[in-house]
């Protein structure tokens, strides 16, 4: 069965319960205590140890009589692409597609080369530094529970040095449980389930919002283009994707390979010809 997330931004209250629930369940460390000044967003982006990230977009128009301000919030996550750049780039086969159709990193096979990091069209996957339990102190990281290492198999449990991202709570799913973020969401902004059902629900939601005069669109429920296909974690947005820092035209790096190889071949041919021309006279 293909499962995924439908994240409806019109229901997101920006509470960040998803971020916390994800870190708690997956025993991920804090990324540091830095005040950014960027609205209420102090974790800034998805990382190897931040697998849900709530973006805050302030759209304030300080006119005195009419008030049409908006504060958009969106919980971002790994998209679990139909054609995943990270998976294609992985030279060791550490990144696989599991029985839930999710893109999953096997930390015991990953060698930490980082090719996946630059191959993700959405900037999701990242390397996790080697974790030093003693140096990080009692509060730097949630306890690494030995008994849970086998269940979880995440980059952090492998003590770092490898790539990390959302597993779509693979361990919870195998037990029939809802992923931690969706479970914690108080307003059902994050919905988990069978992808077909989620897509139907999302389309119906766009229609019902339209009846209330709210213009909304889906991002990733269908093919996003660029060779990526549909996203198993897709979004309902009320502004253009770039307002939420989502790429308008994401591209799978491998789709550029034919052109790249052709250019390389042509260059090689050109150089060969040039060499032949030069050395012919010698």
């Amino acid at each position, binding site marked *: 069965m293909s499962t995924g997330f439908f994240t409806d931004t019109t229901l997101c209250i920006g509470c960040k319960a998803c971020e916390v629930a994800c870190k708690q369940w997956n025993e991920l460390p804090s990324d540091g205590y830095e005040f950014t*000044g960027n609205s209420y967003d*102090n974790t800034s982006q998805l990382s190897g140890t931040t697998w849900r990230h709530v973006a805050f977009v302030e759209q304030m128009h300080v006119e005195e009589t009419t008030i049409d301000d908006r*504060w958009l919030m969106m919980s971002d996550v790994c998209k679990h692409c139909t054609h995943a750049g990270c998976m294609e780039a992985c030279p060791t086969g550490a990144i696989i597609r599991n029985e839930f159709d999710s893109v999953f990193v096997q930390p015991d096979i990953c060698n930490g080369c980082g090719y996946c990091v630059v191959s993700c069209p959405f900037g999701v996957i990242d390397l996790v530094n080697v974790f030093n339990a003693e140096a990080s102190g009692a509060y730097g990281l949630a306890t690494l529970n030995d008994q849970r290492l086998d269940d979880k198999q995440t980059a952090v449990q492998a003590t770092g040095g490898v790539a990390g991202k959302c597993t779509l709570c693979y361990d919870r799913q195998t037990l029939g449980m809802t992923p931690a973020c969706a479970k914690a969401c108080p307003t059902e902004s994050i919905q988990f389930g069978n992808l077909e059902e989620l897509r139907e629900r999302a389309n119906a939601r766009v229609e019902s919002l339209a009846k209330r005069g709210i213009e909304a669109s889906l991002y990733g429920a269908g093919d996003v283009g660029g060779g990526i296909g549909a996203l198993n974690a897709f979004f309902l947005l009320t502004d253009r994707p770039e307002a939420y820092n989502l790429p308008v035209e994401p591209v799978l790096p491998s789709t550029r390979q034919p052109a790249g190889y052709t250019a390389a071949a042509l260059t090689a041919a050109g150089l060969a010809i040039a060499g032949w021309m030069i050395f012919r006279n010698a």
Partner: protein
Amino acid sequence: MPGLGTSFGRGGATVWVPDLAHADCILIEGSNFAEAHPVAFRFVMQAKERGATIIHVDPRFTRTSAMADVYAPIRSGTDIVFLGGIINHVLANESYFKEYVAAYTNAAHLVREDFVDTEDLHGLFSGWDEEKNGYDVATWDFERDEHGAVVNDPTLQHPRCVLNVMRGHFARYTPEMVEDVCGTPRASFLKIAELLAKNSGRERTTAFAYAVGWTQHTAGVQFIRTAAILQLLLGNIGRPGGGIMALRGHANIQGATDIATLYDLLPGYLAMPSALRNEQTLEQYLKSTTKPSGWWANTPKYVVSLLKAFYGDAATKDNDFCYDYLPQLTGDHSTLPTTMAMKDGNVKGYFVIGQNPGASSQNGELTRSAMERLDWLVNIDFYDNETVSFWKREGADPSKIATEVFFLPAATVVEKEGTMVQTSRLLQWHDKAIDPARDSHSDLWYFYDLGKRLKALYAGSNDPKDRPILDMTWEYDHDDPHERAKGEPSALRVLREINGFYTATGEQVKAFTDLADDGSTAAGGWIFTGVCPDEHTNHARSRSGDDSTSLNWGWAWPANRRTLYNRASADPDGKPWSERKKYVWWDEEKREWTGYDVPDFPKTKAPATPAIPGGKGLDAHSGADPFIMNVDGKGQLFVSGALKDGPLPAHYEPLQSVVRNPLYEQQSNPMLRQWDRPDNAYNKAVDAAYPYVLTTYRVTEMSGIMTRYVPWLAELQPAAFCEINPELAVEKGIKNGGWVTISTALGEMEARALVSGRLRPLRIAKGQRVHQIGIPYNYGSQVAFARGDSVGDLIALSMDPNVSIHESKSLTCNIRAGRRAPRHSGVVDADVPSSERTTMGQSSALGPEDLRDPAALTHHARANDGKDASHGMRQMGQGDRPSPEKGA
């Protein structure tokens, strides 16, 4: 919560949280609902999905505003004008719910002829005594016939009937006035007023939700009164999707109030005996506290049952059930006066549990330096915090501090069993998941152990003064041998005692209607009677929800009623107001009240039952009087005498405000209480040195010490910050993310700047531009991952006259770019003239006075004005009104 209590009869939210989903419109004001109560907010979102209109009125555009259909900005502290404006709007347009108002409120009561309104006395009500600096409340009563019965005019034509008195009182609260005072654009205000009117009546209901944004003001009780009046006018109390939701900030705040952490209450909202009233014997006490009519006529049953629960077999009819064991009030012993007394060396010991006053109290430095004067401090907590470590704070000299500090490890919620009562008055049991770590114990363990030790210390004593401890019932040993071995008491035994039992058989009492005043029953908190109706049942454990009222999920006081005053969901004849808003109704066939909820009314009292003039208890009410706790069974639009600062709400500016009161000559609440002394310095009203409005709040990600240590939460809001709008930031050269220093007459704090258009500059009367600055309340500067100066350090102590709550939501301040100077040690003794210090024997700064007797209160306040009193507390009166010259 006397704002709700004096209006409706009970000091609790009138509705339960999931019922918000049934509202057609929700007005959220004085609350940042989505951020402070994100889980409860799901029901607001459900209402929105069902087509309800969500309105948010707030000084800041918050995450709640982002979810609302309509947002309106407001100058902090002006909510009485905003809501008063809506009252005026619905009265002027005759858009109130006429049948409801006529039948269920005191609109028809005639007010005494000698009552004079604020309109005619420049902002004061009649009865103001300049000499005594206080009110004589006699004129705030109703006209009565020769038998003492209130005179009514059911036609609502008489100029002195409550409805018409209100028309006059609120006549100047016009949309123009709202714009001039609140800074709310007129169009936004009118839109909201119309939405409320449109979504009320037979077919539709509007719910209100508020939190500490309304309470923490020097006129806080009157803010809530204004909302209560409006909801009564719109006919929204006691009906599904209506009511007033008082949101509580912590899991068990409601429970703590119910079971009497407040100094002037005994469990179940019974009054604490007072040495200042004539309450020396049980008979005198009962005479003083029992109401002739309404539900409180039952007071003696609850008091005697409580004393039987406290003192067991030792309490007999012959010894007044040990009534004289109870301590008696000698003044205002609430938090702020006690802190002030501590600062002046009059408090010896201090237990701090589940709180961090060193970081979260107002006038933080006074609070921390007050702890230097203690002999001992006991703190029970999970973590090191700014309270227990006050002696090593910035600028302090530990070698000069003699306080002995005991720091005891607390068990977390998953490490102990027990109940919590949440905002819907819902009692929910939680089991223990794991044993507490190492030496940690539940709070219950600490107090059970302390009690046992005290009993052992006094064992064998024949001294009568030791009897209260020796006679105290103290048997809560756990049934589970594992817990018993660790000395953990049984929370269930405590709950069973609170529920109550028959003293002869030990059998559980099933309902509070079974409690008696002869000693045959014991109950530790009568409002909870029924939660454990027999030996095997604990309804707080019930976990069976449904799509209706979920009566089998948890247990709500009183009697498992979810919506209070729900008799009002039916018309006077007992029929639902409409099919759509059907909730509780009279079943003519069965001759009883029935519906989706437990009726908040005598089950078989027919709607046509006439009131018996002069009848006792509920006999004095008719079958159409839904507010059973009140003497007359009606919702109180006009409150006679029970509140100290007026029978109707009138707008006063906060003590520290940026403008003169545009409505009345009276600047601030004449009855507000303050300590004007060097270690509690105030900004003057309209002070050019402090030109900006300052408001405070909390954010979702942080609570306090509990969250500041959690890395996953600390990274989300890692530092104290200050929200300012871009216009002011440019003017002051403040960079987003950079440091700023915010100052008041009391001191300075530093924080990181968060520059945002969410803090909209307001334009008020005469084109004056008002900038509002917001600072969250979550931080402390000494410990944990998330740190920063506490905004409490900027807030001087002042109090509302009714509940002694501090004013920390609307203040004034100044701001500059850059960091503050290093701190020196706390305010030294020499700074406070001895004439302004409290002295021994006056355990509170207020001094001996009757809390319910404003005349007594003002006597002392006046004495202090004469500079001959030994305590430092003053009231703001006419004589104290800052003159414009001083202000400028």
